[in-house]
């Protein structure tokens, strides 16, 4: 099966590249392939490894001025074997300058990190802030339909996104090493007759468009499998994100600040009657209200005449992941510094040092080539 998938992807890649190379041809239906390749070296007291070789082609089709398809295939090796995944396949219809409708599997605007700032050549670090990667809070991709756009008012812009998706599904047992009360956010299919509704409203308050502040929320009234006692476990997730950059002439540098806080809460209606996993209790409540926070700052002497300094960037990030005691995990804090060297606008070499409260200290290097 895997061989067939690989073959199909190889054929897709080949045809897409072949078409993309015929630039500036006429006709409405135009395709291009972009994406990135990643490679990481990680070192600590007990391990030293080259790994996390990823190849993530993004296929973009412009069918007309209004119709557009974007799709990303992720080929990842971090788990020790080759994982091929459909990250997204999103069909868009640009209705008017203020409204775009879309359907498929897409990157939801829940916060600004996942699906946007986490991209290899946007993230100044080789990994995600704690609580913002897989196993953290919220989905990276969702399956459903949505509407989005930009509404300008005077010198201010409002960015909006609303969507209806399959949404999170509660994990009721600890089979397969799962954490009871955590969610499976990225299921391809639905587990009951309910849908999650979510959205993000962001504001660009300055006319120079260099500050974006967003508020996101997502809610689902039933997250459990249909017909089970925990079917009615409801969920509310919220996030606040900030993204700011400024060129500081006296320092000949560009400063970037990003941050995000996200939290989720299971509704108090989630009474669970004991079974093999909870034999000691007839009424069990999912205790599942984790939160995660990160703040990051980076500075790059973009105005320096020195070519080497000009391409150098220094970044610091603090992140914390507060996990419920019921998960049997402690809360994690993480401090990271990174030294990045830009080879091109989308190609970067990262050198990092990470100190996580639940791990020994790590050094890493990562190459990301966007294309």
């Amino acid at each position, binding site marked *: 099966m895997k061989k067939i998938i690989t073959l199909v992807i190889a054929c897709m890649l080949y045809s897409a590249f072949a078409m993309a190379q015929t630039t500036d041809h006429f006709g409405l239906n135009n395709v291009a392939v972009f994406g990135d390749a990643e490679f990481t070296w990680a070192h600590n007291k007990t391990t030293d490894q080259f790994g996390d070789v990823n190849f993530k082609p993004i296929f973009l089709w412009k069918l007309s001025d209004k119709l557009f398809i974007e799709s990303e295939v992720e080929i990842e090796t971090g788990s020790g074997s080759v994982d091929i995944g459909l990250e997204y396949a999103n069909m868009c219809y640009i209705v008017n300058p203020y*409204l775009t409708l879309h359907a498929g599997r897409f990157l939801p605007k829940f916060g600004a990190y996942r699906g946007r700032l986490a991209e290899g050549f*946007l993230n100044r670090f080789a990994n995600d802030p704690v609580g913002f990667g897989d196993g953290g809070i919220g989905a990276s991709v969702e399956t459903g339909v949505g509407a989005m756009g*930009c509404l300008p*008012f005077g010198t201010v812009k409002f960015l*909006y996104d609303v969507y209806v998706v399959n949404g999170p599904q509660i994990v009721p047992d600890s089979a397969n090493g799962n954490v009871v009360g955590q969610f499976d956010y990225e299921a391809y299919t639905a587990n009951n007759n309910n849908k999650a*509704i979510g959205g993000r409203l962001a504001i660009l308050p300055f006319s120079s468009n260099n500050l974006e502040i967003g508020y996101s929320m997502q809610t689902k009234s039933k997250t459990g499998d249909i017909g089970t006692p925990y079917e009615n476990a409801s969920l509310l997730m919220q996030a606040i994100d900030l993204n700011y950059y400024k060129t500081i002439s006296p320092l000949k540098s560009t400063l970037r600040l990003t941050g995000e806080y996200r939290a989720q809460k299971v509704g108090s209606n989630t009474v669970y009657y004991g079974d093999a996993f909870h034999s000691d209790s007839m009424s069990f409540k999912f205790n599942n209200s984790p939160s995660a926070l990160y703040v990051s700052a980076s500075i790059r002497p973009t105005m320096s005449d020195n070519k080497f300094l000009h391409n150098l960037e220094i970044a610091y990030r603090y992140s914390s992941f507060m996990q419920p005691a019921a998960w049997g995990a402690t809360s994690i804090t993480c401090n990271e510094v990174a030294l990045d060297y830009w080879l091109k606008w989308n190609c970067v070499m990262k050198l990092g040092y990470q100190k996580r409260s639940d791990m020994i200290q790590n050094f890493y290097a990562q190459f990301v080539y966007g294309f």
Partner: protein
Amino acid sequence: MKQSKIIIFVFAAVMSAVLFNSCYVSKSIADKSGAQLWAEHCNRCHNAPGPGEFSNTNWDIVAMHMQVRANIGTDEINKIVDFLKAANN
């Protein structure tokens, strides 16, 4: 369920705003050049790719991708693309 009602309300409000086409931009914003908008919007999340980085066809495609990813308005993205294409002469 209360939350979903709020979302539906917000959605309805946004949609009616769109329908009544009440959006307007101040003159200082409308007068912005493609070069300025390119510098401001692209740099918000990543280093702005230089004009001449891609072919004209590819710029059109990239523009749609970024319009969806970063909620950039059609008027502004069109100005950005015109600027970027102007280096491919």
